[in-house]
């Protein structure tokens, strides 16, 4: 059964088509990554899934229903732009958000305290939000999203701006949610994080879906044409060869995409230079991302 299903969804802002005929199925219990450069349509897709904005065309079904909204208590949503009441204590804030998700006051208070303890923020429960560091605040925001143990958790850029230690804590917390049975959707620029955590990924670029499937499946589909080389003649040798589509020069090594038979490429290279390394490698999600989105995604992918 799918937690989320989109079919033929289109959203236009004026002349700009933010999302174009999007079909997507997100199975229950999976961790699904939404990747794509800024302005590609990730947040618009998420907002449509949550019925915060309405699509111009198409159908969206969430948790088996077409009218499931963000306000549904079975959903937890952490928006990309998130703020908190600075003057409230963490305890009161978490209790408030828990109650807005339909929890009884006592349950919300207890769950808030448990989560704070679990994420190593136990002693900050009675402090005011304004006293928290950025990393702590981000963890508190995460807790406010998952405090009511929702079946579907949607996190828009949950890791942006986190230091490696906090990032690891949050990663574990998300995987725990998955293990507890929740479906987790998150958007990210961080390809390695998506690669580590996601069962499946979905990449949107200029409003269109360009990738969708399991991480292993996506990488396998790009496997054959990526070859990592270390040549005595260096990069210059590659310039005259036919069939090479792109060259990613990494200094002493080069990563190339070759449209033909890789064995034939090896023979042609051996005829002109000494081949120190010839590895048919699986491209990283990063490489795939850059390959699809082009040079403009290069900067984004390094964020």
């Amino acid at each position, binding site marked *: 059964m799918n937690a989320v299903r989109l079919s033929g969804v289109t959203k236009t802002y004026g002349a700009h088509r933010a999302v174009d005929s999007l079909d997507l199925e997100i199975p229950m219990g999976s961790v699904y990554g939404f990747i794509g450069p800024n302005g590609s349509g990730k947040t618009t897709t998420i*907002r449509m899934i*949550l019925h*915060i*904005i309405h699509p111009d065309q198409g159908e969206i079904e969430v948790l088996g229903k077409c009218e499931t*909204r*963000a*306000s549904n208590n079975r*959903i*937890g*949503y*952490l*928006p990309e*732009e*998130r*703020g*908190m*009441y*600075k*003057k*409230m204590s963490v305890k009161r804030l978490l209790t*408030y*958000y828990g*109650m*807005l*998700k*339909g929890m009884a006051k006592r349950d919300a208070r207890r769950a808030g305290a448990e989560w704070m303890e679990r994420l190593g923020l136990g002693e900050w429960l009675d402090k005011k939000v304004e006293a928290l560091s950025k990393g702590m605040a981000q963890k508190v*925001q995460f807790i*406010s*999203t998952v405090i009511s143990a929702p079946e579907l958790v949607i996190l828009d850029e949950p890791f942006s701006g986190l230091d490696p230690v906090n990032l690891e804590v949050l990663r574990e917390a998300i995987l725990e949610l998955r293990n507890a049975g929740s479906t987790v959707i998150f958007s990210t620029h961080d390809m390695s994080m998506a690669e580590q955590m996601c069962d499946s990924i979905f990449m949107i670029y200029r409003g269109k879906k360009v990738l969708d499937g399991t991480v292993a499946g996506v990488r396998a589909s790009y496997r054959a044409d990526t070859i990592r080389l270390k040549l005595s003649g260096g990069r210059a040798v590659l310039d005259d060869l036919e069939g090479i589509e792109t060259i990613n020069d990494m200094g002493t090594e080069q990563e190339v995409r070759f449209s033909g038979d890789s064995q034939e490429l090896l023979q042609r290279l051996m005829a002109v230079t000494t081949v120190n390394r010839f590895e048919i490698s699986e491209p990283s999600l990063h490489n795939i991302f850059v390959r699809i989105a082009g040079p403009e995604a290069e900067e984004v992918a390094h964020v």
Partner: protein
Amino acid sequence: MSKVLTIAFTEYLNAVRSKAFIVGIIMMPIMMGAGLIMQVLSESNVDIQERKFAVLDESGELYDYLEEALEARNSGIYKTGKIEFKGLGAVGEGLEVESSGGGESASLEEDELAIREQYLPAFSMEKYEHGDESRSAELVLSDRVRNGELFAFVVIGKNILAERTRPKDQVYYYSASSTYKDLSKWIRSTIQDKVEDSRFAAKGIDLELVADLQRLITFDARGLVEESIDGEEVGGEEDNDIQSFAIPFGSVMLLFMLIMMSAPQALNVVLEEKMQKISEVLVSAVTPFQLMLGKLAGTILLSMTLSLVYLGSIFIATHYFEMEAMIPMRIYAWFLLFQLMAMAIFSSLFAAVGAACSEIRDAQSLITPGMMILMIPMFFLVVVLKSPDSALAVGLSLFPPATPMLMMLRVAIDPGPPMWQLILSVILTAGFTVGCVWAAGKVFRIGLLSSGQAPTLKNLVGWVFSK
């Protein structure tokens, strides 16, 4: 519904716990109290500096009369009363104390003293005889006023008592302080009296007879008379300025003040949440309409709390001073109903503007029309107060958003508007309130997630009618 209540109570608690609210609610009575104290203090510290003026009486007939009148006036510039003298230092400057107990043997603590307190400045005058041929009397005396020797001077024309006077026979008053009118008024009326008397006397008319014939009639303004259950005539009580003016006017001003104190809160919290990016977090838990209703309910609760404090104080004070009959209970009830409706109208308007804007500056310019709607009924207060049943007053008070203010005014003026008008106004205002909340809800939903440039009024109208 429970989510709306959760938002409302959180909003309410945030507001009432804030320093601004606590300071505001305490400061208001303190400031009002301080105002009263200042008034009392300033009353007891009135300007009692002597005003000296010179009189150049060219007629030679009026100076003595003025002197006599002046003496009589100066003897009436003291208030007298009795105080209990309790020990040390109770008598301050400016008080003349006379022992009324009549004996040194009386205990000082228990002694009762008569006090004479001056509350008006004394006037003094001097006769000026002009002897200097080189300069005019006006110049000489003006110099003396400038030097501070005199406060003013009067030149009385030669033929002031003649039957027909020419311009040069008038009375001319010269002073450097044109805003101080007491002296000129006194001189004018004193001379006027004398001149009138002398005119009557010249015609051989008995002055006592004139005074008797000119005595004032008694005129007593009273309310209507009704028949009680026992068949007796009741009512017809003397008109009371507090009841006929202060209560209607005061109730509208209080209503206006309560709206001004609470409704902008809706704009502030919504705009602050939007600026701090809290709005999207909230709409991930509740619908925008629930969020807005919660904010409205919180703001209305806040305003009702203020009302409770102020109306409660008035209620307790009127009972304490046994003046409760002045403000019938129905006035409290109507006040609360009109406050509720006005708060719903204006809070929803303010919340919508808060949601539509991303910056305080934009909100301030967009809220101006809303403030105008709130202010306009205030311009008609005097008109409605004078003729509460005129076609204009009825028309204005029936149609929202002016109803809460103007109908409140009419309710507080005895005997109040007919019941059908009250019912109609409540129905119309309730309908208008629902319309406002609905329209604000539409603007709120779209505005909350919009960013960038503030919408124009035209945009807002478009949002209201968008799907």
